[in-house]
């Protein structure tokens, strides 16, 4: 039978410890960092005797009732045993000794020290010392040859040396270990051990194996290894009979090999996986005592080490008995896996494989039973039974695996002891957890920390209680509950607290809901789950609660306790969260391999429109990580965090993909720190989390404080300005996705925030545009311009033309035109809706406000002309605004096509399709589109029939519709140039003019629905360039007789620009006064005719209207930006 692993007990304070048995085996003796040597009468001895030997005790050895210790005062002392009287100092070093050991007879003591020396001292006469010099680094361990001829020592310089004691000389030295500079830095303590009795072998722990060297020949004769032992072996110890060798590793594994057959006959694992640093056999060979670096003492009892046969049978028996037990523990609810697994072990077991040892003495083939698998199961089971925290340990083991492969030791090749399944190992599936909770094994833990409040669980001997506390005390006062049922899971919402406990043999699993927001007197309900069904995860939505059970079912209750839904889940649930009407479930899709988890995710929508939004798609996780948090942002976007600290958020605009938005690990100061996420907000962008120093989970006391981390998309080259801006833009887009989602599902949205984020996006686009311009990336500029709103494109055009990029400006103006066409097409829709006062869900307040202003304007209709001009100005801007709103809304309309919007989409689509058509095939298509646009616009203007001015304008447009459209882009450019030319006065004036110019530019697409072609007529005389051109054309043609018409204009533009500001202004004014023919056509021109001051007046009007309308700010800001850039 396998040995029994007794539970660990506290022995010493944290740090290095050692253990040994006394000669009779009656006492276990340990020493530790606290400087005490404790004498235990057995593992259950609660009041051990202790001897204080110094401030710290590094090592001890016990023989013939003499206790030798290496203590921190650089001495090796003797105490009597068991009385503990000091019996003198054996030897001194210049620094502390690291390891002491007796020889077999107990007559000598060998001690290795950090001062590179090894001393061999006669116990009876401490003056007889032999010093062995030759190590070049602190000595790790020493061991006597049982025949007293030799001594072996290992050192931090990487050598294991065998000394001849008499001659004080090195016999042989093997460079086996990794070099370090100090014992404390050494990965392994490398405790050597010489086979007692025959003294044939010297056992040296090397990496994750134990190498055996033969006495006299000093050849490496064999290697003891175990596939499951992947971490460094720290200590080895021979059984008193010399047939077995025990090894303890850094990762807490304990292995016992039968040396003759080289079979691993016993594998155990430290219950917490701490490093085993002390190992001792009971003189009878039936027990092994071990200690770890945390100061705990453990015991393996019932080792059957009499004959190897018995152990073989024992292990075979284990093979038979273990699986069922382990499977039961592991897959208590999952039958498929068992079948699959048995299949695997079946295919493995018949395979025979000889042991490929390099010595011949044990060539008996060994039919491998399923022990390996079983054992591995056992270990997996061990890990699995702990929580995710310890799962990590297992994964680190995987990591180390890779390291050891590239280790320094060239010695023996890996000896496959048994035929094993060599493919990727399945990862232990992650256990179900509640996001925002700390592991259940803690006595004081958070059961839930979310945006509503905190649920804490105190579970010690005296009482078991649950504290519920609300961040906002306005929700509810804090609650204190006694946890008689043993609840382990909780969720908290603004309405209720939901608690659940797993079932026991007698009691069924219970779900308890404290519905504190209920208006009746019954604030609580409880539900028993069917026998054998356990609650695995739970969550609270708005007005409902969901529970995932071990029977792979999701049960949905109303908040009052009505059972509403039940459906099955394809796999074991991992966790589940809810927000409003949404339910997000993550479950095991399949077994993962090589440390990966294979998780699936479902997103369901309850409420009036029940639907499944994500249909069990795989959940992307970082490599070899597991899910550590799952939740919704405060705005309702699903997101999650994996154990690598990567936060991912659902990107609804790209077909429900997951975008990494933050890596909390990057902000950690040290590797062991982590952030425990408690909430995510999209507006403002906040990742709320608790910094945990040196742990994964925060303690309940002192109460941790929430910190806020910024988000950062992992884009390329974020150190450059371009990368930064792109990151900001992408992030801004991603984090404004929720607006459209919320509005499409009928929630109110923060319109101010929305327009703010859109403003920011446009601003960023403009900055990126400017940057690309500077870098001479015109194509990129155009790409960026495609993303801009029409208004910002005009700014971009101005920027381009100002930086003398004509080709770019021309392309941009095409884009601007297309955008304006889109807007025009979409506009009637907007208007209709305004008038029918049916508010589209995604409609913004601006249109409403515009309508308000519109009606208020009607009262002023009869007022004087000046006023009217102002009004017109206002109206233009307003429509701009409306169009801009339209424009902004469209991109969102695309992602979330809600039923409400469907009537809108066809038109929008038409508008969107256009840009490509026009850019590609040229004018005809847009020409065909044009009449329709005007018609729509006519309708619109007639709907505003109260406006007398727009009537004639509309008629006029009808006349001009059929004019040739070919020169449109060019005239557009000209107009921009001309506008620019007009703006060069004081700074303030510039600003105003910019607006003016922008307004003018908008005329073609805005309310006076003049087609661009018509506009060219309107505009030219107004701006003065025409005048100047007429006068100067001759000189230009004279200078460049071979120029085309367009080139002439370009040249003219260049010259006109070189004129001084005053000159140009005078030209402009001349233009205004000089061409009365156009005055009838345009109201604005008429206004201009009144004199030069009118422009000022207009500017003032502009200013007035700007005051009224906040939404003008972005453009003015941007225009300021554009000017600054130049």
């Amino acid at each position, binding site marked *: 039978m396998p040995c029994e692993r007794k539970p660990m007990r506290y022995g010493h304070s944290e740090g290095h410890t050692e253990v040994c048995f006394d000669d009779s085996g009656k006492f276990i003796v340990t020493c530790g960092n606290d400087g005490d040597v404790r004498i235990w009468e057995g593992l259950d001895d609660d009041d051990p005797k202790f001897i204080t030997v110094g401030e710290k005790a590094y090592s001890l050895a016990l023989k013939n009732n003499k206790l030798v210790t290496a203590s921190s005062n650089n001495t090796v002392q003797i105490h009597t045993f068991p009385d503990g009287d000091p019996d003198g100092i054996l030897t001194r070093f210049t620094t502390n000794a690291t390891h002491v050991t007796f020889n077999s007879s107990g007559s000598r003591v060998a001690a290795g020290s950090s001062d590179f020396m090894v001393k061999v001292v006669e116990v009876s006469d401490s003056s007889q010392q032999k010093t062995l010099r030759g190590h070049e680094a602190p000595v790790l361990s020493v061991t006597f040859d049982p025949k007293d001829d030799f001594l072996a020592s290992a050192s931090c310089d990487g050598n294991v040396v065998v000394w001849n004691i008499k001659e004080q000389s090195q016999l042989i030295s093997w460079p086996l270990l990794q070099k370090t500079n100090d014992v404390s830095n050494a990965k392994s303590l490398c405790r050597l051990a010489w086979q007692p009795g025959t003294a044939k072998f010297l056992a040296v722990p090397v990496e994750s194996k134990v190498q055996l060297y033969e006495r006299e020949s000093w050849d490496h004769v064999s290697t003891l290894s175990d596939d499951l032992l992947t971490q460094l072996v720290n200590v080895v110890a021979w059984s008193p009979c010399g047939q077995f060798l025990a090894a303890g590793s850094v990762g807490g594994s304990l292995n016992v090999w039968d040396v003759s057959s080289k079979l691993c006959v016993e594998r155990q694992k430290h219950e917490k996986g701490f490093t085993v640093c002390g190992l001792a056999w009971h003189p009878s060979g039936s027990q092994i005592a071990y200690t770890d670096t945390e100061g705990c003492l453990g015991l393996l009892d019932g080792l059957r080490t009499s004959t190897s046969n018995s152990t073989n049978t024992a292990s075979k028996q284990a093979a038979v008995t273990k699986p069922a037990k382990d499977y039961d523990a592991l897959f208590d609810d999952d039958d498929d896996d068992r079948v699959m697994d048995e299949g695997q072990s079946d295919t493995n077991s018949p395979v025979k494989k000889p042991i490929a040892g390099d010595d011949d003495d044990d060539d008996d083939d060994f039919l491998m039973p399923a022990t390996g698998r079983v054992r591995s199961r056992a270990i997996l089971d061990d890990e699995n039974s702990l929580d995710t925290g310890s799962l990590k340990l297992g994964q680190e083991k995987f990591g180390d695996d890779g390291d050891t492969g590239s280790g320094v030791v060239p010695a023996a090749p890996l000896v496959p002891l048994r035929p094993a399944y060599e493919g990727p190992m399945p990862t232990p599936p992650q256990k179900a957890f509640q996001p925002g909770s700390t592991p259940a094994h803690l006595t004081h833990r958070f059961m839930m920390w979310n*945006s509503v*409040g905190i649920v804490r669980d105190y579970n010690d001997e005296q009482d078991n209680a649950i504290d519920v506390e*609300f*961040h*906002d*005390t*306005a929700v509810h006062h804090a609650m204190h509950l006694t946890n008689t049922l043993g609840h382990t899971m909780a969720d908290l919402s603004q309405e209720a607290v939901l608690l659940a406990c797993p079932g026991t043999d007698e009691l069924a699993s219970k779900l308890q809901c404290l519905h504190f927001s209920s208006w009746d007197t019954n604030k609580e309900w409880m539900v028993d789950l069917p026998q054998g069904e356990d609650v695995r995860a739970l969550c609270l939505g708005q007005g409902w609660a969901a529970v995932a059970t071990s029977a792979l079912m999701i049960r949905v209750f109303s908040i009052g306790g009505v059972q509403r839904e039940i459906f099955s889940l394809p796999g074991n649930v991992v966790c589940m969260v809810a927000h409003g009407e949404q339910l997000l479930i993550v479950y095991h899709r399949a077994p993962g391999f090589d440390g990966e988890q294979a998780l699936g995710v479902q997103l369901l929508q309850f409420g009036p429109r029940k639907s499944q939004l994500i249909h069990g798609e795989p959940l992307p996780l970082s490599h070899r990580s597991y899910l550590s948090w799952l939740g919704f942002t405060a705005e309702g976007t699903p997101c999650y965090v994996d154990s690598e600290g990567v936060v991912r958020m659902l990107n609804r605009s790209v077909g429900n993909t997951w975008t990494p938005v933050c890596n909390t690990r990057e902000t950690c100061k040290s590797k062991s720190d982590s952030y425990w996420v408690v909430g995510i907000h999209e507006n403002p962008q906040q990742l*709320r989390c608790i910094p945990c120093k040196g742990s994964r989970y925060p303690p309940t006391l*002192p*109460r941790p*404080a*929430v*910190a*806020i981390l910024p988000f950062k998309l992992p884009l390329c080259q974020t150190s450059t300005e371009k990368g930064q801006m792109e990151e900001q833009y992408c992030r801004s887009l991603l984090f404004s996705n929720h607006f459209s989602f919320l509005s499409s599902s009928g929630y109110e949205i923060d319109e101010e925030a929305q327009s703010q984020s859109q403003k920011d996006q446009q601003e960023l686009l403009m900055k990126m545009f400017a940057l690309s311009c500077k870098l001479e990336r015109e194509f990129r500029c155009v790409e960026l311009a495609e993303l801009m709103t029409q208004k910002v494109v005009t700014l971009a055009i101005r920027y381009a033309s100002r930086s003398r990029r004509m080709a770019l400006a021309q392309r941009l103006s095409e884009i601007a035109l297309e955008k304006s066409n889109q807007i025009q097409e979409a506009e009637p829709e907007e208007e209709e809706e305004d008038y029918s006062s049916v508010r589209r869900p995604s409609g913004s307040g601006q249109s409403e406000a515009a309508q308000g202003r519109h009606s208020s304007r009607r009262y002023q209709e009869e007022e004087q002309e000046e006023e009217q001009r102002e009004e017109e100005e206002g109206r233009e801007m307003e429509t701009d605004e409306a169009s801009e709103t339209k424009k902004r809304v469209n991109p969102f309309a695309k992602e979330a096509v809600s039923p409400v919007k469907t009537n809108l989409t066809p038109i929008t689509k038409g508008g969107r399709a256009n840009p490509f058509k026009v850019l590609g095939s040229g004018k005809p298509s847009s020409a065909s589109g044009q009449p329709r646009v005007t018609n729509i616009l006519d309708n619109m203007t007639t709907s505003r029939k109260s406006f007398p001015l727009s009537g004639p304008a509309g008629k006029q447009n009808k006349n001009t519709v059929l004019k040739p459209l070919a020169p449109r882009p060019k005239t557009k450019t000209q107009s921009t140039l001309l506008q620019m030319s007009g703006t060069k006065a004081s700074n303030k004036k510039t600003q105003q003019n910019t607006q003016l110019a922008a307004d003018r530019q908008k005329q073609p697409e805005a309310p006076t629905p003049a087609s661009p072609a018509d506009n060219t007529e309107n505009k030219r005389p107004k701006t003065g360039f025409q005048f100047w051109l007429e006068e100067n054309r001759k000189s230009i043609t004279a200078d460049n007789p071979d120029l085309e018409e367009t080139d002439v204009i370009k040249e003219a533009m260049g010259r006109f620009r070189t004129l001084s500001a005053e000159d140009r202004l005078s030209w402009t004014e001349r233009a205004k006064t000089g061409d009365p023919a156009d005055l009838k056509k345009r109201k604005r021109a008429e206004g201009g005719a009144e004199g030069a001051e009118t422009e000022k007046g207009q500017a003032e009007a502009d200013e007035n209207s700007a005051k009224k309308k906040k939404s003008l700010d972005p453009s003015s800001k941007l225009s300021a930006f554009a000017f600054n850039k130049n």
Partner: protein
Amino acid sequence: MDASEVEFLAEKETVKIIPNFSLDKIYLIGGDLGPFNPGLPVDVPVWLALNLKQRQKCRIVPPAWMDVDKLEEMRDLERKEDTFTPVPSPYYMELTKLLLNLVMCLCSASDNIPKADEIRTLVKDIWDTRIAKLRLSADSFISQLEAHAKLDNLTLMEINTIRVFLLDSLNCLYKLRSNQHPGSSKGQFADF
């Protein structure tokens, strides 16, 4: 200027609180505060923190330096050095008093500042050390008949405690000296 006025000035220092209510930004003459989100730390002036705490509307997060280990370190440094060492906060004494007194009188130390007593003792130790140094330097200043002296890292409260005494005594000395013949001031001082 008396101690209460210095304390008043100290109340302008900011401290982190965790509110348990929700409130938008508030716009005050001294600047905007908030927004207050339940459970989310926010920086507010001490006077507001105290007020909210008294109304059980928040938890105060003690400043980083209000920690036993850090203060012990500071105390040891202060004792070792002959000059004044930089203090963690220009109002360390006042803040300690304000925050800890509040904790005391509300008897809710458990969720606020751990080891309040120890902190109080440590701050008092630092204070005593510094005041002793201050007296010592004042003494040597007068006894050596210096015209001016420069002391770094003094806090307002410390200056305030010594000011009245030092100025009065200097005035007094001046008067006495101006009546006497120059040169015998040494003896005069001893008499004084």
